[in-house]
């Protein structure tokens, strides 16, 4: 997505956005968080005075506090530009406000960038994102009142995931390394992301480039810290790291069980055991990971920011009551920290609001602890809700329980294998297992039995094994079968076929047996107008396989009876019948060897009644500019459409978005959309798939 179209999504005029922006601008201009004036600004002043390239040693050499800036190089570089400009202005004007303003503005810009990323990731749920992130009391408090810099690592981590979902693993790895460099704790997301990549066959190939690029970038980014003793003591020696051990169960012999690593490991193991993790569930898991850290440690308030954007993404399409709950949790967080921790000065009005409220108005005994307990309960509940929401939306179509089974039958030369390969291009080769009926012919091509029987005769095929293999694959088992080599006309040695998310079964008799037929989610029959079928068969057998035209014609004639008896009746059992027709009938006597170009085609599609077609047809007519004739069926018949016109692969991609939400999860990250009739077929099959999977959800 180009920057321009990404910005087009940005809800710049939404009242919720403007409200959040107004609050931010007021705070940016007026508030000077105490941790800025005591820690961050002195650190940067010391760096500017004593050495931009060795800020940590410069800071310590000038007597700066050790905990002033426990962050890595990336954080330093992110904050440096505007603070430097501000410090310059301070020096010029003799004021002391601009460096702080530069810091506040840096936070605001990164906060905006994070919002833009979230909106780009959930464009359909902008308002929810605004409510759950942009107006979150946690974000407002952490960034603008307490003044912490956690937005820097979080925006980098989110960028890393955004790039990963777009299959840019190297860039994603670099962003992840930058996130970890700016705040070590971001590394906690790493193992979860790795599990997400490795357990899916579709995504496994992304793991290596991401890890390699990430490691290389990490080395570069961490080297300056490791090389400088001052940086080591400030960044790696931060007392925050030891908070990991704060919650523990003491055992009698001096040993302890640390609760945080236990909880985190449990999360990793349960992620590992999930068979299928969608992008949605990954986001929820990362949120839970961060929440666990916050709940199991005496967390600094900035840490609450880590999970807030992930929370917003996970709950972007959920029930309103959960949104209210999340907002309530934020408000409670706000109240608790306002009571306990220093906030901001308002120097312009000479007001100091930095004193924790509890120091002015003492809380009743146990008051703070009770508040914390409620916050803790809310956090635990959030963990549960996140897991529930993530798991509910994960594996929407329950593909990890049972593969999607598609049966494609039709006479030879009707395009079964082309359709199978075009569907493989949509679902992704790594997610599809293709079983071809050709591999179940009983005899090699030169065997004498073919003189008395055609391939179209069911007895010439091992349909029992075909059925058993598909049953086994549909329940997740592995099978062994031979493979028919069309060039040699012979079966190869048996090979192992593993089950997968999608099982495509093509064959002359794929829909022949009703027991197997019932097992398919989608039954497709491919037909073809006679003259076109003859033409294409001639083209394939004469031009490609080198057969004699006369032999091909004889074969066509000899098969006619079997075709009518065994093949065509399968059409009645299909949910979807598709057939190509030439725009003008072909004269086969003019092309006896099948030479010449394929004529212009149109597609006849018959769809079982009950399958929704209106959104797809409207898009094909409206967006793609196709001519679509619709024939009203008699009761019990199929709906019939005749489609004509040019269709670009880009048209196909856009039309697919009209079919069903939730299909994304089923498709490859970069589906190979086709143009022309092949693209139209892709769309009608997907439409049928969406319908079948929805039925499966309703009547499992």
């Amino acid at each position, binding site marked *: 997505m*180009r920057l*321009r*179209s990404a910005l*087009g999504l940005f809800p710049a*005029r939404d009242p919720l956005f403007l409200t959040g922006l107004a609050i931010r601008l007021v705070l940016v201009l007026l508030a000077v968080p105490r941790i800025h004036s005591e820690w961050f600004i002195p650190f940067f002043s010391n760096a500017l005075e004593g050495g931009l390239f060795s800020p940590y040693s410069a800071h310590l050499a000038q007597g700066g506090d050790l905990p002033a800036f426990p962050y890595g190089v990336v954080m330093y570089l992110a904050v440096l530009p505007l603070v430097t400009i501000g410090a310059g202005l301070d020096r010029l004007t003799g004021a002391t406000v601009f460096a702080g303003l530069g810091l506040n503005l840096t936070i605001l810009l990164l906060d905006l960038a994070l919002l833009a990323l979230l909106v780009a990731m959930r464009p359909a749920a902008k308002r929810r994102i605004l409510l759950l992130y942009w107006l979150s009391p946690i974000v407002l408090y952490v960034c603008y009142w307490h003044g912490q810099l956690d937005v820097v690592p979080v925006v980098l981590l989110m960028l890393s995931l955004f790039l990963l979902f777009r299959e840019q693993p190297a860039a994603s790895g670099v962003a992840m390394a930058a996130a970890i460099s700016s705040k070590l704790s971001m590394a906690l997301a790493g193992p979860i992301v790795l599990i997400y990549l490795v357990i899916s066959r579709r995504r496994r190939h992304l793991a290596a480039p991401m890890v390699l690029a990430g490691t290389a970038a990490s080395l570069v980014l961490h080297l300056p810290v490791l090389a400088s003793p001052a940086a080591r003591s400030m960044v790696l020696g931060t007392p925050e790291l030891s908070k990991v051990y704060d919650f523990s169960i003491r055992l009698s012999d001096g040993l302890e069980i640390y609760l945080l690593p236990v909880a985190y490991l449990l999360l990793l193991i349960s992620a590992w055991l999930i068979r299928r993790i969608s992008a949605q569930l990954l986001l929820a898991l990362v949120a839970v990971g961060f929440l666990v850290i916050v709940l199991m440690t005496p967390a600094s308030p900035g840490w609450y920011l880590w999970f807030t954007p992930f929370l917003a993404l996970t709950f972007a399409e959920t029930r309103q009551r959960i949104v209210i709950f999340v907002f309530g949790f934020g408000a409670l967080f706000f109240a608790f920290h306002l009571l306990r921790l220093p906030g901001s000065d308002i120097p312009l009005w000479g007001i100091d609001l930095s004193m924790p409220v509890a120091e002015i108005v003492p809380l009743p005994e146990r008051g703070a602890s009770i508040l914390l307990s409620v916050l803790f309960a809310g956090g635990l509940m959030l963990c549960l809700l996140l897991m529930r929401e993530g798991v509910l939306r994960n594996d929407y179509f329950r593909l990890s329980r049972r593969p999607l089974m598609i049966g494609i039958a039709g006479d030879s030369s009707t395009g079964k294998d082309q359709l199978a390969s075009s569907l493989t291009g949509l679902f992704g080769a790594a997610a599809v297992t293709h079983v071809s009926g050709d591999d179940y012919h009983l005899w090699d091509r030169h065997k004498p039995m073919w003189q008395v029987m055609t391939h179209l005769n069911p007895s010439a095929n091992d349909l029992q094994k075909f059925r058993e293999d598909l049953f086994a694959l549909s329940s997740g088992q592995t099978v062994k079968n031979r493979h028919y080599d069309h060039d040699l006309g012979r079966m190869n040695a048996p090979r192992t076929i593993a089950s997968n998310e999608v099982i495509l079964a093509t064959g002359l008799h794929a829909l022949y047996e009703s027991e197997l037929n019932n097992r398919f989610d989608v039954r497709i029959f491919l037909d073809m107008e006679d003259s076109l079928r003859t033409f294409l068969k001639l083209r394939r057998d004469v031009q490609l396989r080198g057969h004699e035209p006369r032999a091909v014609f004889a074969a066509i004639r000899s098969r006619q009876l079997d075709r009518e008896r065994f093949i065509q009746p399968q059409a009645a059992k299909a949910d979807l019948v598709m057939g190509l027709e030439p725009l003008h009938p072909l004269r086969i006597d003019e092309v006896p060897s099948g030479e010449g170009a394929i004529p212009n085609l149109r597609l006849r599609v018959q769809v079982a009644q009950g399958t929704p077609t209106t959104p797809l047809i*409207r*898009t094909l*007519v*409206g*967006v*793609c*500019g196709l001519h679509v004739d619709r024939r009203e069926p008699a009761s019990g018949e199929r709906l019939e459409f005749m489609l004509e016109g*040019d269709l*670009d692969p*880009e*048209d196909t991609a*856009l039309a697919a*978005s009209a079919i069903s939400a939730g299909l994304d999860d089923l498709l490859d990250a970069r589906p190979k959309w086709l143009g022309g009739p092949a693209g139209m077929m892709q769309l009608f099959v997907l439409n049928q798939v969406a319908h079948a999977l929805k039925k499966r959800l309703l009547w499992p």
Partner: protein
Amino acid sequence: MALTVFNPDGLKQRPACVLFDTDNTLYAYDPAHEQAMEATRQKAERQLGIAPRTFDDAFAEARRQVKARLHGTASSHSRLLYFHRMLELVGLRTQVLLALDFEQTYWRTLLTAAQIFDGAKEFLDDLRQLGIPTVIITDLTSQIQFRKIVYWGFDSYFDYVVTSEEAGQDKPHAAPFELALEKIGKVGGPLWMIGDNPVTDIRAARIHAGAVTLQKRHEGVQVLDGELRPDAAFDHFAELRRLLSSQA
């Protein structure tokens, strides 16, 4: 944000028929157009190496020429003619396939990017339930306007569509309005016109159809004074729904 009424008398009675402009009245045209142009620009850069700047300049010039030649007719808005001329202007002579491809890229992006204004369909449904006939009266060629109507499912709401292609002239000419009045026949009550453009929708409908005019107000739309001033201006279709339910 509320309904601004300039002429309260005109709005006392429920309409007997409502005329609608389409582009920028039922959906925000500018952002969708911008995305569609961007998609086409990118395609031209990818396929032909035409720099975005060259594309923009040639397109603007092509559009100017086509508009000057076909002023006031539906074809003067034809993206196909704009892209066709643009390709000639960048020195590629006539490229039929590319022009068709660019046109299709433009429209499919515009259609999928365009967002129907909130409440528009609900308002149309209110009119349908009250038995008030509705007519689309719009510039541009029928082919693309019909495609839009099908894609958005407006065909089940509107009783008639009048395009400037069939009327022979663009708005603000009287022809499209006269054709619309001819199609609806006699109406026993006030006629409303809902549009965004002060000249082609507001003033023209008042002069040629005697319509009570309501202007859709959003970013980029100006509500003007004098004879260009509508009888009312609204930001959200919900305001019209409330107006309708408050009328006897």
